[in-house]
């Protein structure tokens, strides 16, 4: 199905199953421990041996010698994989560095060996016996120091790194009210609950990979590229995933080393990274330095907007697109967005939940707060004043497919009691706590991506959906079942959804908040085909045929689906393609965050007291799973504001605090009751589902709302994230 024009009325509009807050259909399996995650799929490979990864203890340099003899002689050891016996390995184009080092070492904790043994304990012990000698060289580990050497990044999948509209510099020079602020955001780790894990088995020249991966087809492709074997020989399966957040978009060392280990010992091998290996062996969100300049008329209309961002990466890999939202969020005739990339020899920086926008809002939306104060305008009002219903870089010829930012801001302000906020900072106290309110807009782009699915109806009238789509905890199983149930007119429990096997039709996968909308659209497309096939088989006019209550009906006739399907059943497959809809319409989901913080007047600790997010994201396919994603993303955004930071040891080139005791994600005690409101919206230009992405929207902006609330509470303007107590202490009044 080619989706090229706005969707007309379609069966999804009935809303009999779609749009209802159904529990996750995989929820029971997950909470009872019967959902087998990658490392637990023992029934598929009962004789799997255990592999433990050994990482490099230097960041940059060369391996001069690897001695595996002591490890190989240790009890239970079956083999040790190193670059010396791994055979020829290529670097996949989607990776910044190779997944097995040797002799060159590109980053700290890059895999240098896999020790395989009969038991996990034996492998872990022997892993410590692998002796590696290195010739280290000095690398570049400090973004601030390398900023001056940053270059224009090569054009990647996100288009040109820079954009200019009008003449920013002269407009900024002329503007009567200006803000010029520089912010920093640190490296961050995905820290999903389930670390990267895989079991690999070879059947002849066929590789079976049971892994934890967001993008099945990419995993096949990259494994093929790395190992130099044909994609059709590789079978990837990943039905349950304990979180990804972008950290499992591409195969990592667990999968490739498991495959190499299994090939070496001629037996299945399972590998899980340890928590401590996740930050340095895999990917992370790169740190940024961002300068935002805003120029406005005295009435608050923006005339000049500039967002310049610097980030670093290994091997000039990719830049963090912190200016993404600034291209679209507010009106203004004169605009400049640039991204520069410095070479750093830290581990690979890559996508993490709302790449670009998650950190971009942290500067833009604080700068807006600063501007509102200079203008003596309410920060909500300033944002409303500068709303724009079209892409402000491209002009009115590229309107937004739907945009209710103003409605989100106003509804949020009403519900939160925003009018009670005292615009003068440091005025409200509750015991030892200085109280403040903050607001931020939220914009997350709504990419849509080609996706394919197959739908079958059997002789009992039961429906089965198959696609290599993944469910990373988001609710894919449930919304796809709801889509098929709505389209085929059957109850939800008559639908079985099978996902994440590489022999199923290739989906969009999970990432960039495109997964729900795009993969549901593919199920929609396949169901349209199946409905046609059923009508055709019955000799009925599809235009006049309806599917309801397990029956199909046409011109007074009616037939149960079971009968219509016939003894062999019927199946249909289709792919959704989005043509140039993204070019014609700017597509984003929107929201507004409202936060109340308390800052302890003695200790400088910031604690969140109240949280409200109001969002729009087109049709909400399942309000319960959507709400869960928004809450989770808001919690993560609070982490970015208050505590999450991978600390770089700039001498040795690695992230020092590489475990969950020292890398502080928010805990329950940090997150009060989170109120989420989703406003009604139907977006017929996004997809036939008329939905938009919602999974990454909640993380965009909330950290800035926290920053703005801290300012309102204390009068202290912080610009270097995260806002740990030490950053406030020197600015707080004496006790």
């Amino acid at each position, binding site marked *: 199905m080619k989706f090229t024009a706005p969707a007309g009325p379609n069966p999804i509009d009935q809303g009999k199953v779609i749009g209802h807050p159904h529990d996750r259909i995989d929820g029971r399996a997950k909470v009872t421990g019967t959902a087998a995650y990658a490392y637990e799929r023992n029934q598929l490979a009962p004789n799997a041996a255990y592999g433990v990864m050994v990482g490099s203890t230097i960041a940059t340099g060369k391996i001069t010698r690897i001695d595996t003899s002591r490890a190989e002689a240790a009890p239970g050891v079956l083999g040790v994989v190193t670059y010396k016996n791994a055979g020829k390995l290529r670097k996949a184009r989607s990776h910044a560095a190779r997944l097995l080092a040797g002799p060159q070492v590109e980053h700290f904790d890059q895999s240098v060996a896999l020790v395989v043994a009969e038991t996990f304990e034996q492998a872990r012990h022997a892993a410590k016996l692998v002796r590696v000698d290195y010739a280290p060289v000095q690398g570049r580990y400090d973004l601030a120091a390398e900023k001056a050497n940053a270059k224009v990044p090569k054009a990647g999948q996100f288009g040109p790194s820079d954009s200019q509209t009008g003449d920013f510099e002269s407009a900024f020079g002329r503007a009567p009210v200006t803000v010029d602020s520089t912010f920093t955001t640190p490296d961050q780790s995905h820290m999903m609950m389930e670390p990267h894990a895989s079991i690999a088995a070879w059947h002849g020249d066929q590789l079976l990979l049971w892994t934890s991966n967001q993008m099945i087809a990419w995993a096949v492709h990259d494994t093929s590229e790395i190992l130099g074997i044909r994609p059709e020989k590789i079978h990837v399966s990943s039905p349950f995933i304990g979180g990804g957040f972008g950290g499992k978009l591409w195969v990592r060392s667990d999968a490739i080393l498991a495959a190499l280990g299994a090939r070496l010992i001629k037996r299945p091998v399972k590998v899980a990274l340890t928590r401590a290996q996740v930050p340095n062996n895999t990917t992370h969100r790169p740190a940024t330095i961002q300068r935002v300049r805003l120029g406005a008329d005295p009435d608050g209309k923006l005339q000049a907007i500039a967002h310049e961002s610097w980030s670093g990466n290994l091997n000039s890999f990719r830049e963090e697109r912190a200016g993404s939202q600034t291209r679209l969020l507010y009106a203004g005739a004169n605009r400049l967005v640039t991204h520069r990339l410095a070479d750093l020899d830290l581990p690979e920086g890559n996508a993490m939940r709302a790449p670009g926008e998650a950190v971009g809002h942290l500067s833009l939306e604080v700068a807006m707060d600063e501007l509102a104060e200079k203008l003596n305008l309410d920060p909500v009002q300033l944002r409303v004043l500068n709303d724009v219903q079209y892409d402000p870089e491209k002009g009115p010829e590229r309107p937004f497919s739907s945009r209710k930012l103003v409605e989100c801001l106003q509804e949020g302000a009403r519900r939160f009691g925003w009018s009670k906020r005292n615009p003068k900072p440091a005025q409200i106290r509750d015991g030892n706590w200085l109280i403040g309110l903050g607001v931020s807009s939220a914009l997350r782009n709504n990419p849509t991506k080609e996706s394919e699915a197959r739908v079958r109806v059997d002789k009992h009238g039961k429906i089965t959906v198959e696609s290599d789509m993944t469910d990373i905890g988001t609710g894919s199983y449930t919304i796809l079942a709801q889509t098929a149930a709505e389209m085929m007119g059957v109850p939800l429990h008559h639908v079985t959804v099978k996902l994440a096997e590489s022999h199923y039709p290739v989906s969009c996968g999970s990432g960039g908040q495109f997964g729900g909308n795009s993969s549901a659209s593919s199920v929609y497309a396949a169901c349209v085909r199946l409905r046609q096939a059923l009508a055709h088989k019955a000799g009925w006019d599809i235009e006049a045929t309806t599917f309801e209550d397990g029956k199909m009906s046409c011109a007074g006739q009616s037939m149960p689906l079971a009968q219509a399907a016939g003894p062999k059943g019927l199946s249909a497959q289709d792919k959704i393609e989005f043509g140039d809809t993204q070019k014609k319409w700017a597509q984003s989901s929107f929201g507004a965050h409202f936060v109340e913080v308390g800052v302890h007047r003695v200790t400088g600790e910031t604690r969140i007291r109240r949280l409200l997010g109001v969002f729009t994201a087109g049709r909400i396919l399942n309000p319960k799973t959507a709400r869960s994603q928004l809450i989770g993303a808001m919690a993560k955004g609070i982490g970015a504001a208050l505590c999450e930071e991978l600390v770089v040891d700039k001498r040795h080139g690695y992230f020092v605090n590489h475990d969950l005791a020292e890398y502080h994600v928010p805990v329950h*005690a940090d997150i009060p009751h989170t109120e989420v409101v989703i406003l009604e919206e139907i977006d017929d230009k996004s997809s036939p589902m008329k939905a938009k992405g919602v999974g990454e929207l909640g993380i965009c902006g909330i950290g800035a709302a926290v920053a703005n609330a801290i300012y309102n509470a204390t009068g202290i303007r912080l610009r270097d994230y995260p806002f740990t107590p030490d950053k406030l202490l020197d600015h707080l009044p004496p006790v």
Partner: protein
Amino acid sequence: MQPFTYQRAQTPQEAAQAAQKHPHARFIAGGTNLLDLMKHQVETPPHLIDVNHIGLDKITSAGDGLRIGALVRNTDLAADVRIRRDYPVLSRALLAGASAQLRNKATTAGNLLQRTRCPYFYDTSKPCNKRKPGSGCSAIGGYERNLGILGVSDACIATHPSDMAVAMRVLDAQVETISPDGSQRTIPIADLHRLPGHTPHLETNLKPGELITHVTLPKPVGGRQTYIKVRDRASYAFAAVSMAAVQLPDGRFQFAFGGLAPKPWRVEGAQNAEQILAGARTTPQNAFKKTLASRLITSALQGVKLP
């Protein structure tokens, strides 16, 4: 984890004797710290002596005070009605530590003997004088933000991570031990932990094989008792600075601090921040601890109810 042998002791003296018989053996109780250290091979004891079955899991009256068995779990100690009534600073300190799950396992003696959380101590790819004497300190000049400013040396700036021990220090607790020869002694908590000097790998004054059997608390001092722990998130984080403060009925204060030093930090008789923080050695990353401790002390002296 290195292979090791294991035995389950039935009495305190049997445990102490076993430790004498097996050089470099370690006692294991809750295991909340030792098991992690063994997995990282920061500790590689050839022999473990399980002391979970030697009794010592009761809190009893001792004169005007209390005698806490070494195996009393942190959860039980924090919830004990006598502790909550007469030594509230201890109960609060316990509940500020770790998580409920960890407190269910962690023991009184194990808590005192837990090791630093300095990230370089846990990272065997980096030099650490505490882990490998003479190899150097990676923390100095590295990630020092949460490391010590008092009692530290050029060899080591690690802090002691316990909350419980800070409260015990302010309460003048004493530690009772048994040695392999059966002899027993009592050590004031002030003398249990050592400062690093040139030998940061020596963390306590316990002798080889010596086992902590009890911690005793003197007669309740009454007064106003508070424990405040400042940290980067609301729960499950080690202290940036923690303060146990007791204002005695006569108005004088007793303070002890966590997060500042290689041991629970107390300057006897000190009544102001200047005295307590004298000799602080800060770096740009951890200088905030001095400011923070000073603000906490000033607030307490002003009678501000902090938590």
